[in-house]
């Protein structure tokens, strides 16, 4: 029950331009047809387009043949054949290694890791091989055609091994890109960009949003640029930065703060590596406050990188310490999930958001009050 309530605020049904919010993707719609799709359908559409537009592209992983455990690969095997869309043995290091080999021969390999929690056996192939393939060969070889997709993040009942957010591990690896979409429309455009980007990309899909998020998604082939953050809600008092499903939580926190008269600027980072520092920097120089939020545990999370960078660039403009509202430093718990998660209450209580007076200096991080 608690988890249901806790989840209620996370359901994202996009009504359009309510609240001046641009939670929906801002790709130009114009006269193209759109369709109301959830996240897994949008991803499915992107995969159909990717395979259609490049005959040398492949989709494979565990159980992708029948449509995948999250239905992201529905219809692909039937349409493009089992030579291009196929199940693999249950072996993540093999899946990624095989994908690297295919990509090194000039193909696009869109591989699926069934849950981000299971990506670690492939960590060696990703870090030591894929990320360094071009650099170590002096650009004689590359595996840029490799894209690794994995569902990540809390789902309400996932526990240790179906809820993890491992993005921070990968953001520490020069040579790969890390991309996380926030909604169906974003996911389709970002996935197509990731697949077509000439560098290996790790693409984390917020599994919570696979069904929960519904949005008008253009049916045509479009791409959203990587390494470009987006201000999805404009404001003047504080900057909030996040990615993936957490943005829906943060948006609720923004709405609550607005009732208190605090104007929040919300930024979707989209690409974590390499990340768009300029957009965040410009925003913080305007607002003077920064709050970062992610589901992954706070210690060593990617929020630390953003915090340190913004501190370097915006120190004299900051009116309060950078706030991080994140998961606790525990393995992702089952029954305690509502307590672990960085909910909107935690965001709202954080020092940055609770009292925005420009003359007051905050000594206590809001988050520590909750420990």
């Amino acid at each position, binding site marked *: 029950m608690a988890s249901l309530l806790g989840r209620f605020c996370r359901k994202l049904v996009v009504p359009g331009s309510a609240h001046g919010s641009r939670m929906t993707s801002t790709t130009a719609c114009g006269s193209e047809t759109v369709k109301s799709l959830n996240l897994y359908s949008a991803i499915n559409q992107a995969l159909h387009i990717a395979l259609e537009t490049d005959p040398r592209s492949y989709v494979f992983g565990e159980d992708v043949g029948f449509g995948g455990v999250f239905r992201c690969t529905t219809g692909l095997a039937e349409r493009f054949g089992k030579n291009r869309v196929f199940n693999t043995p249950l*072996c993540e290091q093999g899946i990624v290694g095989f994908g690297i080999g295919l990509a090194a021969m000039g193909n696009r390999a869109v591989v699926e890791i069934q849950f981000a929690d299971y990506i670690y056996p492939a960590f060696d192939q990703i870090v030591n091989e894929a990320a360094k393939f071009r650099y170590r060969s002096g650009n004689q070889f590359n595996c840029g055609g490799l894209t690794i997709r994995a569902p990540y993040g809390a789902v309400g009942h996932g526990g240790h091994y179906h809820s993890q957010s491992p993005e921070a591990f990968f953001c520490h690896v020069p040579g790969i890109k890390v991309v996380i979409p926030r909604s169906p429309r974003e996911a389709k455009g970002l996935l197509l960009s990731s697949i077509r980007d000439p560098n290996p990309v790790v693409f984390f899909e917020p599994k919570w949003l696979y069904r929960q998020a519904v949005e008008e998604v253009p049916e045509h082939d479009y791409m959203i640029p990587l390494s470009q953050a987006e201000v999805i809600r404009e404001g003047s008092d504080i900057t909030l930065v996040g990615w993936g499903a957490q943005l829906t939580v943060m948006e609720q926190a923004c709405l609550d703060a607005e009732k208190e008269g605090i104007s929040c600027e919300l930024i979707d980072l989209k690409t974590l590596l390499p990340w768009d520092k300029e957009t965040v920097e410009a925003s913080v120089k305007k607002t003077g406050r920064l709050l970062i939020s992610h589901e992954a545990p706070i210690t060593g999370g990617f929020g630390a990188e953003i915090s340190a960078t913004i501190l370097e660039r915006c120190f004299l403009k900051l009116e309060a310490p950078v706030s991080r509202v994140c998961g606790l430093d525990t393995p992702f718990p089952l029954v305690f999930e509502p307590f672990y998660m960085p909910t909107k209450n935690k965001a709202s209580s954080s020092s940055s958001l609770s009292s925005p007076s420009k003359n007051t200096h905050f000594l206590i991080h809001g988050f520590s009050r909750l420990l």
Partner: protein
Amino acid sequence: MHIRQGTTCTCRPSNPLPTNIVKDATSFLHMAMLFARSRNLVSSLRQNLGLSAILIKRNHSSPRPVFTNYQLSSRVFLDPSTSFRHESTAVETQPDLVQQSDHEDDAQELDFPGGKVGYTSEMKFIPESSSRRIPCYRVLNEHGKIISDRDFIPVSEKLAVRMYEQMATLQVMDHIFYEAQRQGRISFYLTSVGEEAINIASAAALSPEDVVLPQYREPGVLLWRGFTLEEFANQCFGNKADYGKGRQMPIHYGSNQHNYFTVSSPIATQLPQAAGVGYALKMEKKNACAVTFIGDGGTSEGDFHAGLNFAAVMEAPVVFICRNNGWAISTHISEQFRSDGIVVKGQAYGIRSIRVDGNDALAVYSAVRSAREMAVTEQRPVLIEAMTYRVGHHSTSDDSTKYREADEIQYWKMSRNPVNRFKKWVEDNGWWSEEDESKLRSSTRKQLLQAIQAAEKWEKQPLTELFNDVYDVKTKNLEEQEVGLKALVEKQPQDYPTGFHI
């Protein structure tokens, strides 16, 4: 028992294989059932071959099958219009592993996912090892004489001489680069001493279109394909001419022009990649396969399992060559695995495999050539275990006398030397003389010394190459870091090595 491998060029009837072939007969029957276009063929097989009888009887007096196992197993049998081209693919059975039963009702089969399997009321464990180790295919004896005329692919004078020259060149190259490291001129080196036959003969058996994914002890393959001594030296010195742009340690060669993937230090990572490469070639319908190398130690890595399993399931044309040289740095193979080496692992993945004398250049040539043909024409992986010995230390960072007897090293270096063995055969044919020998050795040595001197004098890589190729296009953070570093180096040049132009 004699392994029939045949050659790729001639047609010869196989020797009759033992009739206690229950396991293989059953699997061949499965294949027949899969491929057969009608049930009639299956029932006629059962009748003609008395297979039902074989399934239930243990004794060896069953009638000799009308068709050999090889014939049953290959599509040739089922399509009478094709020739016996693939005779070389004859597969040796392993009777020790066969489960036999002697009950009437065992003629029935159980239906499980994965197909039908016979059952037995006798509880019998498959032994952990065969009573006999898988024998090793060889062509030349230790004195360089051909043992049997019948089971190898002939090598012309031209090819043989080239093979010998390259083996000797590899020896000289190893010696001189090793010394260069000892003199402090390069930072690191590792030799292939003792494994020259594997290096050169395997390369000679491949086509230039075959994509090679090495571990790190196979520079001879690159040498064969035309990488020059200067190019080797440039990589070792990491100078401006190094194709790798000075980013990796010495011996981490790579050349897209020669279809030789860049060496990376992690062990066995190339194996699942080779499966992907093979699959790519299959999809492109190329007359080429992936060829990948691994040592005995590397077969313990998870990527070995991943690579072989993927290649088998995906039916990818890959030749896996394992150099079983007895040592993984200081770890002897007795501490690496408990199986009969690596060859027995092939069948566990459904992969055809052979054990070959890795110090016999002609045997390696024949085996690799045959394996390559199988991989390409049948679109399947093949595993070769080449038995050899690592005469040199693991690398210049190792002193192997600390963990093995000097006598052992000496024995392999002198009495079991693959280069000398092949040399004897080439000389016996009148294709090589002592004069040729000294000419080759001295000119190669000279060329190498010149290559090293030239490589040393080459300019260093420009500093910007530190930041290129991380991505296809330099990212903002890298641009900023480059600007910062250049400013720092300009400000305090005394703290940095010279020669790296900004």
